[in-house]
């Protein structure tokens, strides 16, 4: 549409046509088209697993597309490594920072491309000059001599951005830059992004917080199931429109209808304190979960939710306080004893804590239930029993795999998650600790997981649900607790709270309501 107005030639910083990338079991990018104009801020939106990160990796040369062409500044290019991308002026700021804590800001920035004097010594004067030049040009203020370990998250991110600019990048890729930031830091980041744009840089960033996208982006491209759905201007759409583009026409709703909450306490946590290096990360947390109840725990990542989960599961040391399962104090129990007593666990990172990726599915279902039938009898593993149970889980929980002998790594994320949910649910737990149970899985699997949790709730299961998806929390929970810097700062009724208000509580701002 741009070309019919006066046939003016518009320089596009990036132009992707027909990019397709396949991974074992999934097509991550399916005929993706993307045009980013020079000097604009372009947002890429999409659900977890929509293919955003893969697309960014292709752009940065970390992965090669199976099909499609890529143009940078009008030239067809083929990137086979990040150094090719850097040469073309493309820089990437990863979601997880890659900084050396014990070096200073300046040392981190020059790390890997140090200017040298005669004899191979680092020319710090030249480095500093170039640093000031870059930081000054884009209005990025930071003390170059500060050790990185003393920096806040937002400042570390700024160091990463300077690092990329220092290497001459004019096209910046930011992978979920706001995911790790608190609201004030997000504002600062957006100010920096505007400065960068004013300085002539092109920014491509991934985000799935829709308000933020509308605020900062000049264009928005939406991905769904690996395909480009639309490219829109922020003035033309609302957050609702964007959400619809992201998930398709019907938004699944995680509503739980009638209350099934009983007054039988399944798990009681009292005055729980967990220390990390003498610093309390869980502070005097007290709450109870009843049979048939889902207690949602909201909070910005890193406010003690993970440590709380670890304390309940038994993998973190409890400094003081107590945990009671039905009528037994389990504070000092081992993980195995707790699992055997009926605590089910859906970990937030299924690859790290949930699966033996190279082992067949039937061995994966044994994990966590080694001591119980039908998985074992006495000291022996019951191979036939385990296989049969896995076969049941495969049918009941719709795990899509050719058989139970394939390795877990062959399954897609959603199916891996369904296997884990099936494994935990079929063991008939008293309490289920579900940490981000639908993170990174597709909409269909998400709906299945919600249905499973709801059904178990109706059958009297007590669930602790930790999630970053506020709609999921509000939709599923009977009670919502908000954690902020290790403490429970609010107990809310999901029937009356909106995601916006909940967000305010999570940043520690909403306690006055």
């Amino acid at each position: 549409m741009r070309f019919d107005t006066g046939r003016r030639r518009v320089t596009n910083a990036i132009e992707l046509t027909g990019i397709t990338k396949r991974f074992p079991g999934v097509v991550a990018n399916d005929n993706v088209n993307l045009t980013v104009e020079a000097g604009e801020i372009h947002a890429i939106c999409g659900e977890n697993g929509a293919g955003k990160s893969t697309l960014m990796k292709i752009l940065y040369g970390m992965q090669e597309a199976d099909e499609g062409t890529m143009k940078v500044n009008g030239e067809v290019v083929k990137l086979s490594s990040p150094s090719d991308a850097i040469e073309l002026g493309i820089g990437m700021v990863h979601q997880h920072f890659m900084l050396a804590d014990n070096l200073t800001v300046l040392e981190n920035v020059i790390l890997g491309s140090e200017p040298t004097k005669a004899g191979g010594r680092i020319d710090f004067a030249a480095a500093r000059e170039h640093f000031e030049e870059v930081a000054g040009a884009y209005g990025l203020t930071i003390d170059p001599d500060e050790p990185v370990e003393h920096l806040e998250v937002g400042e570390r991110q700024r160091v990463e951005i300077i690092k990329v600019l220092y290497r001459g990048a004019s096209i910046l890729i930011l992978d979920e830059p706001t995911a790790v930031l608190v609201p004030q830091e997000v504002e600062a980041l957006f100010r920096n992004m505007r400065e960068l744009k004013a300085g002539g840089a092109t920014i491509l960033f991934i985000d799935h917080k829709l308000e933020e996208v509308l605020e900062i982006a000049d264009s928005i491209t939406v991905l769904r199931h690996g395909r480009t759905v639309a490219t829109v201007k922020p003035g033309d759409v609302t957050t609702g429109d964007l959400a619809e583009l992201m998930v398709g026409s019907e938004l699944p709703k995680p509503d739980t209808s009638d209350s099934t909450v009983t007054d039988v306490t399944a798990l009681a946590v009292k005055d729980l304190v967990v220390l990390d290096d003498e610093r309390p990360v869980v502070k005097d947390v007290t709450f109870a979960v009843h049979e048939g109840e889902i207690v949602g725990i909201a909070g910005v990542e890193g406010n003690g939710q993970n440590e709380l989960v670890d304390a309940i599961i038994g993998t973190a040391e409890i400094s003081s306080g107590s945990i009671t399962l039905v009528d037994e104090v389990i504070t000092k129990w081992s993980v195995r004893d707790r699992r055997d007593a009926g605590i089910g666990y859906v970990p937030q990172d299924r690859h790290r804590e949930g699966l033996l990726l190279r082992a067949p599915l039937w061995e994966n279902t044994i994990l966590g239930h080694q001591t119980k039938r039908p998985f074992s009898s006495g000291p022996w593993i019951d191979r036939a029993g385990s296989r049969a149970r896995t076969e049941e889980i495969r049918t009941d929980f719709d795990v899509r795999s050719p058989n139970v002998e394939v390795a877990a790594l062959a399954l897609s994320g959603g199916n891996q998650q369904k296997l884990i949910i099936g494994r935990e649910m079929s063991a008939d737990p008293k309490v289920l600790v579900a940490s981000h149970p639908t993170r990174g899985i597709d909409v269909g699997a998400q709906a299945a997981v919600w249905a499973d949790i709801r059904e178990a709730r109706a059958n009297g299961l007590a669930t602790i649900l930790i999630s970053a998806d506020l709609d999921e929390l509000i939709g599923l929970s009977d009670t919502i607790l908000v954690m902020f810097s290790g403490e429970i700062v609010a107990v809310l009724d999901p029937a009356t709270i909106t995601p916006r208000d909940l967000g305010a509580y999570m940043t520690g701002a909403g306690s006055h309501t």
Partner: protein
Amino acid sequence: MTGLLRRTVLTVGAPLLAAVFALGLASIVLLISGSNPIEGFGDMLRNGRELETIIDTVNRATPFYISAVAAAIGFRMNLFNIGVEGQYLLAAFFAAAAGGAVDLPPVLHVGLIFVVATSVGAFWSGLAGVLKVTRGVNEVISTIMLNFIALGGLIAWLSRVWVDDVQATNSGTKIIPESGRMPSLNSIVEIFTREIGKGRRLTGVFVVALVIGLLYHVIVNRTRFGFDLRASGSNPFAARAGGVPPRRMIVMAMLLSGATAGMVGMVQVVSDRFKYDQSFIQGLGFAGIAVALLGRNHPGGMMVGALLFGFLDASSGILQLSGSAPREIVVIIQGVILLAAVVAYEVVSRIRDREEARLAAEALAKKQIEVSA
């Protein structure tokens, strides 16, 4: 069914290919050094068919196999027990000393020697395990250190204290009496074949090695303990969240590995030399690591690997006698086979991963067609 066939071909094909590659490379080396590879390998093969060479091969393969199992127990848990070397030498030393010091009825005497050997091996290896779980010392470092302490420290010192005859040039522990020796399997083999010549005796410890292999298979693949062991090895975080106590597993694995390592030297102690002396065979612990890698920690695979290494060792003597090739060629073949096998396994495992993913994706696609139909 074709899938199963493909898998088998892939599994067996990898080490076979590695062996062919190693032979090819060894041939080139032989040509460069001025020997005729066909002549050299021909000599090896011709001799390999002789009953005496087979006996010799099995005798040499036995400690390789036990040592490989000891290393494999650690590997299955991602523990790198480099200390099999020190563990078996120390165990053999104490076991030989104990065996020479007492006089017991036949079966009991041999039993005592084995109990001492496994206990000493387990203790020495357990030290590394305890250091790891209490002080966070990496087991690679600690077991290497313990190797030095065992060989250069304890054995060097104690063999001067417990020595049988200080004047002898090759002094060692007191000779174990007849009651503490394991009978050879010659009479059993001779039922099926001709009489075994050249004074060769098939070691009774071979039976022990077979039992160890069987136990290893059953414990690792069929028991809860084995499952916990493998789970800890393939994903320690998932294992921990799944209720496997990580510290206990580390100590248990090191104890088991060490106990097995303790039996590596038994061929020498109860059926060959009947003492520990200065020329006691060293290096079996490191050879075991190689065999475990070659056999992919699989009880059958390691047996094949041990026999192969045993055969190559047995052949080196023949090459020296016939002079058709330098005997060192055997070591070159062993090294190249190992390297080539490790590479081949990696290639095969990648092919297999892709295969499985493709199958899973097909199942997914099929299901979706069914749903949409």
